[in-house]
């Protein structure tokens, strides 16, 4: 087969700039072949090279006493003690999910799971962080229905429970939904695997599904903005096969028990290209692949297509010479292909052959390390001051605060997500001590007394209004959720979803948000172990909110510290940790009740945040706390209502009096940070006060649990509603949009 000649159009179609093409010429010392051009273009895409984000990410803190592996490998690794390690990472699959929601989300799940078991860990849990446009639009219902079905369809069948996550709605995600999935696995600390090649002559083995023309140029697609033409790119859609992936997990984990594996890498974005050259460059060797040996699903595939295919459920292994038989035997047990497709070489080249013909020969290290790095120009948007302006005097106070509360509870961002999580197996492996529906997920670690907590968070609206503060709050809130569940926050992974970084305002948002995250990670002692950057999230020039999503990992010293957000008994004291300020900027209340996206987000004092968290954790560990819930979207009133309702089997009312001399709407619905609502036995109140004063944290008893009404009073307001009304508003909101299925 003859390869096309390299023309300007072909270079442009590969999204390589003139400068980048010059760089290719320099590295090769000649013109690239067509296959080589394809390889450079995927390796140097934003998705694989982080060329626009690197200069900012390098300022994040990435080390700490518990971090065994920071960014750079397939996933981060944290020491849990007792010889166990947590391997975790988050990935986005935004663009594919817009094009085909079911398969886009499904293959996103499949991809992140591979990152985890590649490192030797058994994947035990998934969390999904989703953003959609308003459900009043049919297209958004279709997207959400498809994405949730895809996560459910793939995650359940592959046998990894989806135990938590979040769903948030805003107009800006209408043409650009976000699908971020976190996976965590557990491995013995001394049995971790890495993407390496080891000794020269080692065989390179391809395992898993056959290669088709799926998703060719998916990696470059994920780095482009959408336009009308995106529709035409559809035939590259990849279909996930959770059954094959389940077999692949079992086969790889079984292989890892034996002593044959040198290195292993999943084939994700940029498929065989990325996996082979990254292994070689990390191993400091070369690698040679013969595309003719690669198992194929379709006829007549060119070397270019084989190298760039993004067919799912495939892995690349390097094993010790002479152990090929062992590999074949284990994979045959699971009816999976395991084929030697190449070997490790000593010349540092990534060489691709088709039989005897060499179709690509590129220095592997240069391909990876000499990728372009951009210091994109930054500019604070001219409209930033405008959106931050908010004069509270111009905001009319509502007449009926109960009505406002009901509206907020029915707002899809706040409403119960039971309809979503009931479609996910969230119980498999018998670890789920706190499942979906509380601040963080808590899993026990069998055979130890410990547990782990996980939460995802990230408020795009705050980050839009003030990227630095938004970045800080994303980390702080995720940590607070972990603390409220009884865990000590130890490390994060993250997904950074932003617009087109070649626009200086977007680059500025990115830089600021990352700076904020870094500050919070330092203050809270939660280093970054990995993550993912998704840029170009815009359609026809309109970017999404800058949306950093944080996945926070915490450790529970004892599983008995696991704490949920719901009241446990009538007659308990309700106490508020932290202070409420007159802050309404960026709140859900302003958006839902006044149609405003305006103001500064609530202020974040990291030092105070840390003290509140330590105080809460110490109180939990001392056994004083019956329930804990952080105040976030919708403020104090919504958090109190959730604590009443979120155990459907046992709703318990509350009677609260608030004395603060603030505007009632700010007091009830403002989203001041660093606040946690606790419930405890009356007899324990003094001990809680002592702990709080030791940490310099304000604790205010505000009422009592009990009854079947929600009562909340203060200066200028008196809300008194039966729980059943709150419950209906909150629980029926999401299903009401899906009464008529459109995604059958």
């Amino acid at each position, binding site marked *: 087969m003859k390869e096309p000649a390299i023309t300007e159009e072909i270079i442009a179609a590969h999204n390589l700039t003139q400068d980048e093409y010059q760089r290719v010429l320099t590295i090769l010392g000649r013109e690239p072949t067509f296959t080589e051009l394809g390889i450079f273009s995927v390796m140097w895409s934003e998705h694989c090279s982080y060329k626009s984000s690197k200069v900012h990410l390098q300022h994040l803190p990435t080390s700490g006493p518990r971090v065994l592996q920071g960014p750079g490998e397939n996933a981060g690794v944290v020491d849990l003690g007792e010889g166990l390690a947590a391997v975790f990472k988050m990935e986005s699959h935004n663009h594919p999910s817009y094009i085909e929601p079911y398969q886009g989300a499904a293959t996103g799940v499949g991809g992140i799971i591979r990152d985890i078991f590649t490192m030797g860990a058994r994947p035990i849990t998934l969390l999904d962080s989703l953003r959609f446009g308003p459900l009043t639009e049919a297209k958004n219902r279709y997207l959400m229905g498809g994405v949730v079905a895809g996560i459910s369809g793939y995650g359940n069948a592959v046998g990894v429970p989806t135990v938590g996550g979040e769903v948030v709605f805003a107009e800006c995600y209408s043409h650009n939904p976000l699908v971020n999935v976190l996976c965590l696995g557990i491995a013995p600390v001394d049995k971790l695997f890495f993407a390496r090649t080891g000794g020269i002559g080692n065989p390179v083995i391809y395992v898993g599904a056959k290669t088709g023309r799926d998703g060719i140029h998916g990696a470059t697609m994920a780095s482009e903005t959408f336009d009308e033409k995106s529709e035409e790119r559809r035939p590259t859609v990849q279909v996930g096969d959770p059954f094959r992936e389940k077999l692949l997990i079992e086969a790889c984990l079984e292989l890892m028990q034996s002593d044959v594996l040198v290195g292993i890498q999943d084939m994700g974005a940029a498929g065989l290209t990325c996996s082979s050259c990254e292994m070689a460059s990390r191993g400091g060797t070369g690698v040679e692949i013969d595309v003719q040996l690669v198992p194929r699903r379709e006829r007549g595939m060119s070397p270019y297509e084989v190298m760039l295919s993004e067919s799912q459920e495939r892995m690349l292994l390097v094993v010790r010479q002479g152990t090929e038989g062992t590999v074949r035997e284990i994979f045959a047990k699971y009816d999976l292909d395991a084929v030697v497709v190449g070997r490790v070489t000593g010349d540092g080249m990534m060489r691709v052959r088709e039989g005897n013909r060499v179709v690509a020969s590129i220095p592997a290290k240069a391909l990876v390390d000499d990728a372009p790095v951009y210091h994109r120009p930054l500019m604070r948007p001219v409209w930033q001051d405008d959106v931050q302006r908010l004069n509270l005097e111009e905001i009319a106070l509502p007449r009926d605060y109960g009505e406002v509360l009901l509206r907020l509870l029915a707002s899809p961002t706040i409403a119960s997500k039971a309809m979503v999580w*009931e479609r996910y197996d969230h119980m498999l*492996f*018998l670890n789920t001590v706190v499942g979906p529906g509380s601040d963080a997920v808590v899993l026990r670690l069998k055979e130890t007394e410990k547990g782990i907590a996980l939460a995802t968070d990230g408020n795009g609206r705050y980050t839009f209004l003030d990227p630095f503060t938004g970045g800080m709050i994303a980390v702080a809130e995720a940590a607070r959720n972990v603390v409220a569940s009884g865990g000590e926050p130890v490390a994060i992974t993250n997904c950074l979803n932003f617009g087109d970084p070649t626009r200086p305002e977007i680059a500025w948002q990115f830089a600021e948000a990352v700076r904020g995250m870094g500050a919070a990670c330092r203050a809270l002692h939660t280093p970054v172990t990995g993550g993912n950057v998704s840029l170009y999230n815009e359609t026809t020039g309109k970017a999404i909110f800058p949306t950093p999503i944080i996945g926070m990992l915490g450790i529970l010293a004892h599983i008995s510290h696991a704490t949920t957000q719901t009241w446990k008994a009538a007659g308990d004291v309700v106490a508020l940790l932290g202070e409420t300020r007159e802050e309404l900027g960026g709140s859900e209340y302003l958006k839902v009740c006044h149609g405003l996206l305006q103001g500064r987000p609530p202020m974040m004092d990291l030092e105070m945040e840390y003290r509140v968290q330590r105080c809460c954790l110490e109180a939990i560990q001392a056994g004083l706390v019956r329930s804990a819930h952080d105040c976030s979207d919708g403020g104090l009133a919504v958090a109190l209502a959730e604590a009443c309702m979120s155990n459907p089997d046992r709703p318990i009312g509350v009677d609260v009096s608030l004395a603060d001399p603030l505007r009632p709407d700010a007091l009830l619905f403002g989203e001041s940070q660093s606040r946690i609502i606790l419930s405890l036995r009356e007899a324990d109140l003094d001990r809680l006060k002592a702990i709080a004063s030791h940490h310099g944290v304000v604790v205010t008893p505000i009422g009592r649990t009990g009854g079947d009404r929600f009562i909340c009073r203060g200066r200028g307001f008196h809300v008194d509603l039966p729980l059943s009304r709150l419950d209906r508003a909150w629980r029926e909101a999401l299903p009401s949009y899906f009464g008529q299925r459109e995604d059958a």
Partner: protein
Amino acid sequence: MRFGIIVFPGSNCELDCQWVLHDILGQQAELIWHKEQELKDYDCLILPGGFAHGDYLRTGAIARFSPIMKAVEDHARRGGLVMGICNGFQILCEAGLLPGMLLRNTTLSFICRQVYMRVETTETPFTGTCATGQVLRVPINHNEGRYYADDRTLARLKTNKQVVFRYVTSAGELFEKANPNGSLDHVAGVCNEQRNVLGLMPHPERAAEPLLGSASGRAIFESIINYGRALSPASR
């Protein structure tokens, strides 16, 4: 007792069953890969939940042809105990070891949540320590759990008291809203005529520890163990 847990490609609840049987209840429990052709002398076989062969074509349709299934049938014919949970139930129906079929939930969606099921008969090895009418709180986790049988089969099931569990409210009532998947006559579990083969959609192994929210599924495993003990008091 000796439990054997059959692992099909795509099964995923085998470790959970083993955990409950071995680590919680102190029984022997071994995993058996579906390509095996012979079985050691197990007292009870468990076909666990999951997605054998990806649930492709029909749930359980391909798994019933696994090499091990011949031995499972022989074991059942000899009166050995077999319990299919969720996907295991689906496989037993496809294999003809249990009457009826499991169809797509009427909600058309996968459902994972706690439900209540009522013990309809204690005259099985799987419910011997329960009380008739006892309500168990056990989670379901399936896409195809709508029990179906033709009229004649259903009539026979009723006459023979082969309906072992029904979906009910927490108070034990047969209200429509307590039937999560549209099962015929609220059927959650059935046994064969000889009463040694049971299939049920809810997952008792997910309800065996208070830490995880419910321990009421334990009654089923304890009934089996009790039955085994009664059969051969000396050896166990």
